């Protein structure tokens, strides 16, 4: 599990060093972070490398065409270009996990992933969990039944991280599940009830 996460952070042979270099080369990520990129045509676009900008992404089972800047993170693309605002940007540096999505079923911090690197991969966000008829995913239903989360800002990230973890370990005990979602912060710190809800959701998933 751990190895697969690490590998998928470096897609297509891209090392962490290459990731950072590509961002620096694009020259548009300031120390304070860029959370909003404008419409296509706005903002700096200079890049030393020729990168295809019009991508087709597989998001929640749908093929979405989108114009992507070379330095654009998946969080920026999903939130600002595809309108999928369920994931949150709590820190923009891979510390809080609020932006967690599944990329090929593996939990990833969307703030720390270049959109260019997920071409051809399957992306699942919180908006893709419930059925089109509105029926909640059993994981969501479990949390709902236990009144999990308080402010809810961290909830989408926790749910996606849990889903990825349960794919590997569908029968966790509380401690194992806590470790599985320990990359996600909740500042309301309602961890006890969150875990209860997630465990209930895992139970529902096993019954489906």
């Amino acid at each position, binding site marked *: 599990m751990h190895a697969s996460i690490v590998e998928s952070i470096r897609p297509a042979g891209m090392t962490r060093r290459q990731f950072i270099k590509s961002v620096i080369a694009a020259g*548009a990520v*300031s*120390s*304070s*972070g*860029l*959370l*909003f*990129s*404008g*419409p296509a045509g*706005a*903002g*700096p676009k200079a890049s030393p490398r020729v990168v295809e900008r019009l991508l087709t992404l597989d998001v929640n089972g749908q093929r979405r065409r989108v114009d992507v800047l070379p330095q654009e993170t998946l969080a920026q693309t999903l939130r600002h270009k595809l*309108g*999928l*605002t*369920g*994931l*949150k*940007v*709590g*820190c*923009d*540096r891979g*510390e*809080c996990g*609020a932006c967690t999505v599944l990329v090929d079923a593996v939990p990833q911090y969307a703030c720390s992933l270049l959109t260019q690197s997920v071409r051809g991969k399957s992306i699942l*966000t*919180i*908006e893709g*969990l*419930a059925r089109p008829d509105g029926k*909640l995913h059993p994981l*969501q239903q479990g*949390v*709902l*039944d*236990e*009144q999990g*989360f*308080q*402010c*809810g*800002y*961290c909830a*989408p990230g926790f749910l996606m991280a849990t889903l990825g973890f349960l794919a590997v370990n569908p029968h966790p005990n509380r401690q194992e599940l*806590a470790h599985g979602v*320990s990359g996600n*912060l*909740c*500042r*309301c*710190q*309602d*961890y*006890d*009830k*969150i*875990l209860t809800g997630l465990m209930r959701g895992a139970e529902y998933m096993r019954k489906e």
Partner: protein
Amino acid sequence: MADNDALFTPKLTGHNYVTPDLRAKLTGSARFADDFRAEGMLVCKLLTSPLPHARVTHLDLRTALAVPGVRAILTADELPPPADSVSDSGAVIKASPWAERALTMEPLYQGEPILAVAAVDEATASAAIEAVDIAYEALPFVIDPLDSLRPGGANARTDGNVWLPPARPGERPRIGELKWSAAEFEAAGPDRLPLGKATNEWSYGEVEAGLARAALVLDETFITPNVSHQALETRSALAWWENGKLHLAVGSQSTVQTVPAIAKWLNMDANDIVVISEYTGGGFGGKITASVAAIIPALLAKKARAPVMLRASREDEQAIGRARPSTIGRMRAGFAKDGRLLGLDMLVVMDNGPYEEQFDALMAGRLASLLYQPQAMRWRGAAVLTNTPTRGAQTAPGGLQVSALLGPVLAKAARRLGLDPLAICRINAPEGRAPVGPPKPDGSLNAATSVFVKQALDRGASAFGWQARRFRPAPAKGTVRRGIGVATGCFVAGTVGFDGLLVITPQGRLRIHTGVGNLGTESFSDAQRVAADALDMPWEACEIVWGNTGRHLAWSCVSGGSQTIHAMSRAALAAGLDARAKLKEIAAQTLGGKPEDYAIGSQRVFRRDNGTQGLSFAEAARRAIELGGIYDGHQCPAGINKATQTAVAALAGQGLVAVARDTFPRDGQTYSHVASFAEVEVDIETGMYRITALHAEADAGTVVHPRAFAGQLAGRSMLGIGHATRQKWFYDKEYGIPVSRRFYQSRPPTILCCPEHFTWGSVGIPDPQTPIGARGIGEPPTGAACAAVLCALNDALGDDTFLRAPVMVDAVLAAIEPAIRPAADNLSANV
């Protein structure tokens, strides 16, 4: 068909349910402030001060404004002057000349905003920030309150270093200078707070006499940390103007109360402001009205003639997102042989930050008088200014600190006197209408509405297995030391006087218009269960309207100070009773007889002597519209708050409109308490430790929503655990620059920091001074858990082994090997 003539029949209240906001939170459809979008929206970035105290001497914006895509730049001289405010009694409160403003030309801490840029995207805004031509004159600065109190120490502001009481009655507190003598520092030594002059003090009883007759007198100094709020949602607001009205989607703990706060800072009419805040990503006191930063996008939007989004970066949030002030306390406490606290002399120095006076030190004194019931007490305090970020109320301001300062003192006294630490908590615990300091002008003390913390200690001790754990043999081998601790916490837990507003629609549904903010405690919804119960309405027939003042909301309390469930359940009941009275009057006018001939139940108003004769709520609502006047909101009763009157006028004619102000009696001040029990296991080889068990037992009156209540107990206990174990500021004192600016440096607790076994309980005795019996629970768990863990660590490591929280690995190792304990900076606020 049951009559529901009782004032309040709790069919829904006290039971779990799914709150109306939860599904949206779990599906990603909940819209927080930074999820809003508007056509042509610009984004805003801040230029912040690189220095801890400076004056801007040169500012040239021409190059920045020439950056393509930049639409406007806002500077401090464009801010309107803050408006004076008017108290409930009509007295004018002058705007403070020392108040924080959204932007400044004399930054008082590193990270304070100087100007703001609006541009088509963040990259462009960042480029413009880089292009600003600015120069500063560095001014003297101070990071640590004791450094400022030393002879010759720097002042954080050019006009002083402390808040002083008003010079004359009716005036505002003012800033002045306070220095302690070298002799006072010398006399105290490196590990004790000097007993210098304070700026405020009060006392009751004969303190020195109490200390003189004590069997044991302890003289303890302890330091609590500066801790930032660090809400996961950074300060966010989207502002746009339509027809002269400001619309603001903002992450705020409060909804209707954010309007007058924004109006004050923008110096404009509150009727021209619409606040949208359906969801807020954490507040903890840092976003009670979230108003200071929110006016930046408001003014930029006006200037740029386009919607503007401010979405603070994590680093900016650390600077402007508020923090709990550190306190340094010195407590001389005299105990009788049985552990009773005979006299308490308490001095608290608070790291106030550079702006508005914080009340943590003052609250620490007030709550000490309640929590430990000293027979005689003196409190002295000083709010010392430093060039560090603006402080604000954080969960149990003063309540966290008083438990951390005094809880371990009680435990130490128990060990010295050969008593059970539980027994010394119990003998000093408040009870019933317990007295609360400070004394009133006539010398008497205030009284709590009710306190049942002794019951909480008893129940909690049983649930935790205190005695069994106390006498459990120590680990026989290895490097593990075990310790247990018990402590109490308290905080204010209720206010009165707000409005409830309901509409029974012609479809027979109950629409509840509440101005309570939604920050995750669920009290915006939980309190309304009372209104439904008052009308015997099934929850499925109820709809809550919240989070948008454009949807006509009732005047409600701020969501801070754990007052909401108390204040707004009373307001909901008042409105529910108004609806009942109107239903009966309508039935009497329609069907004959007197209102008292009718009863309410099963969504009908019906004759007591003939249940088949009556009106459904839907029929009564239609009849209310026909009758008009007070029945459908065309007339608003006297005594309703002004904001609610406006809402009622807008809702007039939509159905049976019920509106009432909470005028239920209350005698005393409302407080909630928690008793917490903790067990730790410390590895003395590595300094690492685990919290193996924590039990929190509440005394917060009637539990309205058990799952939400449990979440507050657990979550706020975790906040206390963070203060005890890992959260604090680090500063480069030479340059006045914060080192801890991100999560990995400030280390808020993760899910792996939870106690291995967390349990909770509630005494559940209703508060007799409020009809529902409920008090707030959001804050007292914090101090109780923090102090219980500190006491457990003392139990494991011994007394006098650390003098500050948090207790991190270095402190544990220093406790085990005192020879390596650092001697320097022992009393510094940020190390």
